[in-house]
């Protein structure tokens, strides 16, 4: 995981991604626009930096582009293409979404809107001694239409049983653990991109909104809510940035959990500062807030990941230092 891309080039890429995401609101169009910009090549050359840049842009723009499929596919070692989708774990979980039961495979998970256009789905199946990557015909994965809290977003539940012989084992170089770590790191950047957008909206509102003859930003109760949001965002950001240099799965889980906590707290504080207008559909805030709820649940949430992290420490009897000076 070396740093291959210079900061200036990354900034250019980010600008290009953000523009493409803003211009193509539908998931399919957005995906294609990003592939046209070289998204697959970027993932191949510098997976963690590339996904961090793209997912920060996703968070900032609230685009419905389905890039998580590619990040997970790449880490699993399967083909990255706009025709391939991935089955993700159930909400709040990071375990493989499918289990082998005799001749049947029980799938309980989430899929993105990529499924609609995909020919093939990559599916991790738990078979007792670890998860194995398989490929399955995307047409076998039927999804019930559901709006959910965030109809503009790309993810929905998938609950289906299929015959085990419909799966083709994939000889891949990656592991499920690496796929989870890659997803954690990417999603942390998405959550933080969204949190920074919500904080910026609340900050501007606090400066513009006058009550009792002065900007509400002058009241300490409001200042401290915004300050606490920034502190949580910066703390999580340092961990998410740390993941770019260190592929440790525990560090990635911590980054996702901290980013979820930062984004959820920022959403709560920002909505309180926005007050009435932040509760309306007229203001854009609710879109970011709802997206935060969805992204927080993917691959384990700010509420479930600490349990998993705590159990991992308990089983090791100690706490690793993780990063060094």
């Amino acid at each position, binding site marked *: 995981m070396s740093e291959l891309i210079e900061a200036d080039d990354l900034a250019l890429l980010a600008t290009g991604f953000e523009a493409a995401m803003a211009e193509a609101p539908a998931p399919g169009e957005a995906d294609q626009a990003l592939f046209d910009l070289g998204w697959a090549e970027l993932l191949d050359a510098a997976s963690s930096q590339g996904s961090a840049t793209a997912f920060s842009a996703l968070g900032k723009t609230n685009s419905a582009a389905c890039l998580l499929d590619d990040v997970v596919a790449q880490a699993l070692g399967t083909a990255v293409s706009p025709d391939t989708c991935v089955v993700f774990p159930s909400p709040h979980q990071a375990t493989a979404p499918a289990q082998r039961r005799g001749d049947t495979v029980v799938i309980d998970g989430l899929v993105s809107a990529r499924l609609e256009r995909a020919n093939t789905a990559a599916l991790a199946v738990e078979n007792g001694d670890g998860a194995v990557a398989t490929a399955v015909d995307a047409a076998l994965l039927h999804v019930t239409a559901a709006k959910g809290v965030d109809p503009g977003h790309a993810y929905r539940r998938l609950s289906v049983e299929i015959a085990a012989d419909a799966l083709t084992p994939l000889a891949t170089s990656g592991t499920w653990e690496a796929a989870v770590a890659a997803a954690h790191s990417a999603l942390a950047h998405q959550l933080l991109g969204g949190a920074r957008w919500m904080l910026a909206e609340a*900050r501007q509102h*606090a*400066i513009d909104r006058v009550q009792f003859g*002065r*900007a509400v*930003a*002058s*009241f*300490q109760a409001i*200042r*401290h809510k*915004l*300050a*606490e949001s*920034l*502190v949580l965002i*910066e*703390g*999580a950001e*340092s*961990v998410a*940035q*740390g993941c770019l240099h260190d592929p440790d799965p525990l*560090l990635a889980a*911590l980054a996702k*959990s*901290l980013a979820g*906590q930062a984004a959820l707290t920022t959403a709560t504080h920002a909505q309180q500062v926005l007050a009435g207008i932040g509760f309306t559909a007229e203001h854009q805030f609710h879109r970011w807030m709802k997206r935060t709820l969805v992204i927080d649940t993917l691959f384990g949430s700010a509420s479930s*990941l*600490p*349990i*998993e*992290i*705590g*159990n991992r*420490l*308990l*089983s090791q*009897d*100690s*706490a690793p*230092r*993780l*990063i*060094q*000076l």
Partner: protein
Amino acid sequence: MDTATFRRELEAWLDANTQELTPPYEGAGTMDEQLAHYSHVKRALYDADFGRYGWPESVNGLGGSPLLRAIVGEEINLRGLADPSPWTMIEVLAPTVIDFARPEIAASLVPPFIRGDEMWCQGFSEPDAGSDLASISCRADKTDGGWVVSGQKIWTSFIQYAQRCVLLVRTGEPGSAHRGITALLVDVDSPGVSYSPIETMHGRHDFAEVHYDEVFVPDERLIGEEDGGWQVAMDILPYERSTTFWHRGALLHRRFSDLVAQMAASGDRSDTAAKALGQAFQSLVAFRCRSRDTQHRLAGGQQLGVETSIDKILITSAELELFEAARDLLGGVVEFDDDLDAAMWRTDYLYSKAAPIYGGTAEIQRNIVARRLLDLGPES
């Protein structure tokens, strides 16, 4: 020397000298025992050269990045070989004295300080100037060859062990705020200095109330410019928020590991226990990653500033969460038990309550973040 090589050599040396460096007392020990052992460890590190890296040659150091000092304190704290509090004074005061004091003063006084032969203290706060530091009133008036200092300071840590004190005094008009403040390096045994220790709620005499009654301080003990003391105080801040925090973070990491080991041994695998540990750990890691970025910015020669308020809030939250988790999970140990282990948890739990108060309260830090980092304009 690169940091990885330095760490390896240091670890090897610490492994070889563990017995020699382990505190001779059980548990936390008395303050006298702690301070004596702290000096012993500092001298051993200095004489083995590890304690001289990261300090300039002008004070008998061996040069190199300040990261090396962060690593020494980290390894000592992870192994629990010395209490980090007295060490804090070196990391907070010595860099600024080296930058601002007359070179010959720094060259003669700083080496015994960093070798652990001397203890220094910091005379900033006053009864009427806590968070509002710029309102100090302890005065210094010019006299032949120096100043005469009169007034009162409070929360002066370790003065009963100290030879010298970095003192902020008012040299301008009473209302001159941060413009009329000067920094002096005062000998604690000067005639007119008296102090009475204040007992903390965890039963120690960490700090004292100090009276200065016409204390003479010679000219050469001026730190920085006359009326330039605010700049000196602000220069201290980044050091207080970099190396020192890294050391304290290592202590918190060790105590967290102790908690994990105790919980693992207890067999409690409930989600409640796992979640409390997971949350405490993620707060520690958020601080550690943030602080690493800060150490590298300092080592890279960047000017640290108000953004270190974020580091301060993160380490404070991590410390509070850790010891609240310990109190919850250990089931009455903090409240009822008196064995050595329980006494340590109780001491650490109670001491954690000071974290959002000292070094600028949690509220002041949030004010700084709001004003300077979020640019929210003035408060009403």
